[in-house]
Each structure stands twice: as C-alpha cells, then as structure tokens.
C-alpha cells in the first residue's frame, strides 16, 4: 500500500549582507535555477547574485 504523499517543505534563504532572497519555491529563473530548486542543491561555490560577497554557507533561512 502506498504511504502518505511526501510533502516537500520549501524554504526561503536570505543573504545576510544585501537581503537577497533565494526562494526554493520560486527559484531564480534569471540565474538559471528553476522553481523547486532546493538550496542545498546549489553548487558549493554559489555566491549571492546581488552582492557576490556572501557564499552559500552564509545564507540564512528567511
């Protein structure tokens, strides 16, 4: 018997320097990340597309 449907919780992540928000739900089409892109799946060398001075490890859940 199939289990209950898995619910994927989408989170927003915020750049602490400039306030840019990466929304997993919306993605960032301009940067080439389609809706539903999980933050953890972004490349390790990902940097904030607005300020470029904060990396993936610096982002905080918004």
């Amino acid at each position, binding site marked *: 018997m199939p289990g209950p449907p898995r619910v994927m919780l989408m989170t927003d992540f915020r750049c602490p*320097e*400039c306030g*840019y928000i990466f929304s997993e739900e919306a993605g960032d*089409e*301009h*940067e*080439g*990340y389609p809706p539903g892109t999980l933050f953890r799946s972004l490349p390790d060398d990902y*940097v904030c*597309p*607005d*300020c*470029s*001075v*904060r*990396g993936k490890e610096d982002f905080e859940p918004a």
Partner: protein
Amino acid sequence: MKGYTAALSTGEAIHYIDRKRWFWSLSVFYPLQPFIGIWLHSETGNQAWLLLPLFLGYVAAPILDWILGEDRNNPPDEVVQQLDRDYYYRFLTYAVVPLHFLTLFGAAWWAGTQSLHWWAFLGLAVVAGITSGLGINTGHELGHKKSRFERWLAKIVLAVPVYGHFWIEHNRGHHRDVSTPEDPASARMGESIYRFSRREIPGAFQRAWTIEKERLARRGRSVWNADNQILHSMSLSAAIQLGLLIAFGWKMIPFLAVHNIFAWWQLTSANYVEHYGLLRQKDANGKYERCQPHHSWNSNHIFSNLVLFHLERHSDHHAHPLRRYQSLRNFDDLPTLPYGYFGAYLLSYVPWLWYRVMDRRLLALPHVGGDLDRINIDPRKKQAIQRKYGRHDNAGSTAGHADD
C-alpha cells in the same frame, strides 16, 4: 539645507546634515569638461585648449585634493536608510548618463568637422576617452543596485566606453575574487600598471564572458542569445560607433580607437590603485576569508571623491557593495592612498616611483606587519622582492625588513 533626524538607542535624537549634498553634482558636470576646451578653441583658434581637460584632471584635480584635503566624516548609521532613500542622490547618477553620450558625440563632431593638427586631434580623442572612462564609474554605481531600471541604465552608459561586460565582470567576478591572485582586476606587488593592463583588460572580458556563458547554460541557452547581458550593451556600442563613422567619415577610425583604449585605461588605472598588493588569507578549508575593509586602498580626498561618486571610499564599497555612494564610510586604520585617485594614477604611470611610495606603505599596514606571505606578489618579482624586503621564514616572521 536638508537634514535627517533619527533616534539613537539611548532615546537621544540626532540631526545629520550632509554638507556635501549639493557638491555631488560635480560628478554630473565633470564629464562635460571637454566642452570647455572646445569652446575655448572656437573662441581663440588655439587648438591647445582642446587639451585643457588633461590639465584639469592631472594637475588641477591633484592640487585641489591637496588644498581641500580629506573628509573623514561619516553619516551616522541611524540615518543611512533615510539617506539611501533620498531620491536626489540617485537622480544625479541618472542625470549624468545622457551627458556621457553628449560628450562623446560633441568631441567626435569637433574632431570630425574641424581641421586640427594631428596632435590636437589625438589629444581630443584622449580627452574624450578619459571622459568616457568616467562613464564606467557611473555604470559602476548604477550596476551595483538591485532595481532593473538602474541596471539597465548601467548597461546603457557602459556602451559609451565599449565596456558592456564590466557590469557582469565587476559584480560577479571582481567582488568575489578581489585581492586574490585569481583576480585579473587586483594588481600584485611588483606588477607595473603596464603589465597589469595586459592581464586585466583581456582577463576581465574573459571572466565576464565565462560567467554569462555559465548562467545562460543553466537556462539551457547558448551564449549567443538575446538574453546575453553583455551583448545588450555591446550592440548599443556598435550602433554608436558605426553611427559616428557614417556621420563623420574615416577620421572616426583613429579617433574611436584612441577613445576606446583611453576609456579602458581609466578603469585599469582605478583597478590598479584600488587593491595593489592586498591579499585575503585562506581559512582552514582553503576558502578565502570574507572581504574586509583592509582589502582595498581607501582615499578620503574631498575633490576627487566629489567628481567620482565617492569611488575612493573603496574599502566600505567592497565590504558592502550595494551601499549607495552618499552613505559610504571611512574607517580607522584603513590602507590609505597618499593622494586622491588622479594623483595616484599619475604616480602609477611611473612604476619605479609607485613602488618607492607604495611598497613600504603596503608592508607597514597593520594586518601585513612586514609579512610577505600576507601580500599578493607578482610571481615574476617574488625573488627580487624577497631579497629586497627580507626573506620570510616558515615560522611566520620576517628576517630583515623593508627599510633597506
């Protein structure tokens, strides 16, 4: 004069007045200076007047910086939000955009329609190029902002100096890699500006193209696509330069070639002095430390800051790239240039003199402390610099020092 009022955490109210408020319009009018030379030439018939902006930029501006001195004043943090929202300041950065076009068209018209000596013709092209180089500064201020309107204005103004890739390269490449050996736009100790330009100009374009190519690849698109942001600006550049060629004939070929090279040279000059020799350290994971204010050379000279939208408050700019020009701050113990940018440019054009002034200043910085491992050194000059300033041992101290 307009002021800003805010409450401190103690409950005390503060009132701040920006005494430089109206003087920021100098950044708008400064790019019009070639017209002064053109007007004086038309009035007197003396073609030497066309070179007047070179005198204004490289003699008068450093003298004014020397006379007027430095401004270390900062807006209080509590009013920065109000200052940033004051539309007047951003309006100035919008207003200067058409003036960059006007200056290029005016100088090209004069060069294309007057019977000039070869030296006056080339001089006017140099003047036009240096002035269009200021357009890169305007594009720099606009390109750092989040609004689509300001980013589009950046792309438009960067078409004047044919540097449409700058917006991508600077924001996504230079700010990420600044003050590391990997950055083609950060000068190394012992690297002359002439050698630096041969690394910086092609390196910056290559990095911008790669960044845009990777972004488009993620979107499943070719780099040769209407969505390529570099091509937006470059297409406008092609239209401008082709239009000038059609309007004023073959004379525009040497004029525009000289104009373009000197416009790029302006940015090269700024990049050269802004991070010379400074180096970010790597952490235990091999990642570069976050860019700190001491990873840029700063200058508080009033005049040259007023004509460059505060570009010389470069330490705060790199630490907080989206901060608007009117809110950039000075900090204590920053790496500090001995002159404003125009004076520093002149110094850099004479490499032995630049090294003489700057190398000791670099070694004496508090976070460097004479340690050559904390300096971004040109690999070609490493041995010579170690011989001159003391070979560094593995224990983290320097044997000998910079004073020989």
